[in-house]
């Protein structure tokens, strides 16, 4: 423990953490820092070595126990919480090669060995004497990591190695002394404190390696190995990849050295990935705040779609995605999404496990903004042979067709299923943020997100912090909005049910009509909506309905008969479950229907023609 800590510093620290809310915490403080020295045995798929952890008690309580995460133990058998919840991994884990473990050999503090307890992916260390608030402890830990064949974000595939969350790692301690020490569930990602990392990895000479941070030294050893040293500050993980097959490409984008590690089959994607990185840096630097590091690594992982992952200064891209033309932008979507995580998770590091929407939802929203910015509102995912499908279309499709059984804000492992987690945390959240933008205006939304990034960079904001700041910046009471959309499973659907105009009075010269528009609110969420009424003389009348009742009838006097009415004409309520009932005309629209009929008839004739052609 650090005995040189002065009482005045302790007082200031406690004062700052208790009196002021988290968003106005002073400067950046490294809380959990690591010095790691390991050797990779590529034949045995073993990593052995030691780490020195320096941990600062930033809470107001004395600590007699410390908690650490041991994520690799999620793969230790087919009966771990992680594997059982995954379902599909259970069969795989019966094979020995897919199993891995993180074995702790010793734990010591400055006075010698201390006792610890293991509980699958969690380790608790009982301290010989309590760690006082504001005090630091230094622990040494010797460990051995047996890498599993990669099935999920950590492991090896033939000679390729990918590692994130791979070493004994401190759990996050709240200011009130509560530990965020959850076991690794299948539907949880990670949550760690910021710190400084000095990592040395020894591995065979022919391996290409890169990871979080900057390479500070590389020396060749007499036994045909090399030791590569990294240094990183203000990060909360050290992720890395190594392979003798990596092809390295480097580009400098906006002052950031971007290192691409390609497996040979994916090298041709280089120009598309560069464009993706450029798009993210351009957008996020200007809309949120500048990327604070000078380096970024984009590495090919060895597993499919689940192989796309974010870590500080390091992202992975799945290999062997199907070859697509440039106007089918799957590659672009993935790289933009993973890279946008640098802002929402890497730098603004919310709790990915218990409030996953704060990183996944924010990132999905940001991904859409970047896709729209780069490739247009329409057809930014697919723009092929006249078929235009946008990110918003797909997101809406996923949200609309899924059961709405979970709210957005809840711990990841409490969602009904993986699908429900994905729909709410990624897609519904991104649409709710779109809706928020439509309600408060783009300018205010941009200001809010900029402020959010500035206030919470290198910190751990929570949902409450997000809501309070949104209300402050937009100067609106958003309590009801967030309660309905974030903490409830309510839905929204407005409908124009009936329209009519009846002649009023007998004057033949200046005819007057009583026009009635009947609106319905089919969902439970109450939002004020605009209604645009168009008359036969071309006049347009705009009205607003507060949406409080289940139905409402507008009765207005008009000089011409009604032609049509549209509720929410600008489609601000992007989560409206059925946009098609938002509008109604008096006269039928025959030509669009005829065009559809014509096309559909031809498509069906073509189907039958295929039978004629081939049989």
């Amino acid at each position, binding site marked *: 423990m650090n005995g040189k800590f002065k009482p005045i510093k302790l007082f200031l620290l406690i004062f700052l953490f208790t009196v002021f809310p988290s968003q106005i915490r002073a400067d950046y403080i490294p809380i959990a820092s690591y010095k790691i020295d390991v050797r990779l045995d590529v034949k045995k798929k073993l990593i052995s070595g030691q780490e020195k952890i320096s941990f600062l008690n930033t809470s107001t309580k004395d600590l007699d126990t410390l908690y650490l995460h041991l994520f690799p133990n999620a793969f230790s058998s087919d009966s771990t919480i992680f594997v059982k919840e995954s379902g599909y991994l259970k069969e795989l884990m019966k094979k020995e090669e897919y199993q891995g473990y993180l074995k702790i050999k010793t734990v010591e503090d400055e006075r010698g060995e201390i006792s610890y307890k293991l509980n699958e992916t969690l380790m608790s260390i009982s301290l010989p004497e309590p760690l006082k608030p504001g005090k630091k402890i230094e622990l040494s830990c010797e460990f051995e990591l047996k890498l599993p064949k990669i099935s999920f974000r950590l492991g090896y595939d033939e000679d390729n190695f990918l590692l994130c969350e791979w070493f004994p790692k401190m759990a996050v301690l709240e200011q009130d002394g509560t530990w965020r020490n959850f076991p690794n569930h299948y539907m949880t990602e990670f949550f760690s404190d910021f710190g400084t990392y000095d990592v040395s990895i020894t591995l065979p000479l022919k391996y290409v390696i890169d990871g979080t941070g900057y390479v500070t030294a590389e020396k060749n050893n007499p036994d045909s190995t090399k030791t590569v040293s990294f240094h990183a500050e203000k990060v909360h993980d050290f992720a890395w990849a190594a392979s003798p097959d990596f092809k390295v490409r480097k580009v400098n984008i906006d002052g950031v050295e971007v290192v691409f590690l390609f497996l040979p089959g994916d090298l041709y994607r280089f120009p598309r990935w560069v464009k993706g990185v450029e798009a993210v840096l351009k957008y996020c630097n200007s809309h949120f705040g500048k990327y604070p590091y000078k380096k970024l690594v984009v590495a090919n992982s060895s597993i499919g779609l689940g192989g796309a992952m974010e870590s500080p200064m390091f992202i992975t891209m799945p290999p062997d995605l199907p070859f697509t033309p440039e106007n089918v932008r799957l590659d672009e979507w993935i790289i933009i999404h993973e890279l946008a995580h640098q802002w929402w998770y890497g730098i603004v590091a919310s709790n990915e496990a218990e409030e996953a929407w704060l990183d996944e939802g924010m990132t999905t929203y940001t991904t859409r903004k970047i896709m729209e910015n780069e490739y247009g509102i329409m057809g930014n995912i697919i723009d092929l042979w006249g078929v235009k499908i946008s990110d918003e279309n797909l997101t*809406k499709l996923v949200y609309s067709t899924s059961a709405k059984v979970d709210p957005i804000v809840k711990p990841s492992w409490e969602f009904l299923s993986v699908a429900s987690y994905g729909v709410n945390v990624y897609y519904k959240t991104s649409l709710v943020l779109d809706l928020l933008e439509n309600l408060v205006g783009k300018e205010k939304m941009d200001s809010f997100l900029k402020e959010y990034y500035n206030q919470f960079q290198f910190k751990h904001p929570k949902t409450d912090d997000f809501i309070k700041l949104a209300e402050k910046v937009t100067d609106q009471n958003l309590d009801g909005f967030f309660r309905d959309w974030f903490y409830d499973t309510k839905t929204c659907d407005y409908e124009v049910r009936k329209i009519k105009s009846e002649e009023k009075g007998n004057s033949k010269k200046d005819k007057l009509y009583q026009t009635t528009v009947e609106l319905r609110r089919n969902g439970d969420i109450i939002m004020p909506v605009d209604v645009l009424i168009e008359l036969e003389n071309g006049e347009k009348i705009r009205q607003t309905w507060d949406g409080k009742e289940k139905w409402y009838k507008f009765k207005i006097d008009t000089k011409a008969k009604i032609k049509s009415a549209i509720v929410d004409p600008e489609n601000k309520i992007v989560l409206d479950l059925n946009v*098609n*009932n938002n509008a109604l005309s008096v006269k039928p629209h025959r*030509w669009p229907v005829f065009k*559809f009929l*014509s096309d559909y008839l031809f498509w069906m*004739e073509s189907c039958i023609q295929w039978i004629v052609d*081939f049989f």
Partner: protein
Amino acid sequence: MVMWEAFRNGIARVWENKILALILFLFKVFFAFCLLIPAYYMFARTFSLSPLANNFLKGYDFSLLVDFFTYWNKSIGLYRVLFLFIILISILGYIFLSGGLWGALFQNLREGKQRFKGEKFFGDCGKYFWSFFKIFIFICVIYILAFILGMLIFSLIQAIAGKELSVTGHVLVLITGLVIFALLFMLVDMWGDYLRIYRVTSEEKKLRVILKPSLRFIFRNFGRTVLLYYLLSLILLGTLIAYLGLSKILHFIPADKLLILSLFLVQQAYSLFRSFYRLVYYSSQLVLFDKLYDLR
């Protein structure tokens, strides 16, 4: 050149039997209508009174279609079953109809221009149905084998090309793969046609009896049979590209009534042409067969 002669003669003979193309076209329209009606009902109910439907005049507005699919989710599930059922019925229907088509074309070749007789046409439909059904089953199996062979060849090409390919390399491998599959499937389709020719011309009902001679015929005259088939297919490809170009122009300029009507007419004209041209395949191959094995 005998193939060119067969092609020209084939067109002339189908032209003399234009009614066959019309029957085939009406056959397609009938089944297409069966598939269209429920889809049209759902679409019209959703959009006929909605001003938002005008967005469809500029292409396909997916924001509206997303909600359409969501709203009709259960009905679309049922529609899929109906689709499969109707497709199955149309396959059987075509096996039945093709007997009459082949019979009429063969009669034209043997006896010159004849007046269309429904009695004879539907008689042939019934007469050849069972044989053609067996040919259909056999050809389905051969298609599967051709697919497996295609996959093997494609994997081999990928292995030869290696992993470190440029974008152009990937495009070339993909195009090569598509061409290989197309050539293989065309060969299978061609074999199916010559099996039917043998059935119609020899009056042999047993499939196993006509398998060998049809294959022998194709391989003995491999250059001519294949070249004729690929010549027919190349011309079809040309017309398809021309149609797609025209349809794209008509689809994506802001539509008015006249343009929508033009699009409808172009689509139906092309569908009629496809019916006509499929008969040209039959007829040209029949003429080639006749030239090489004098049928008269």
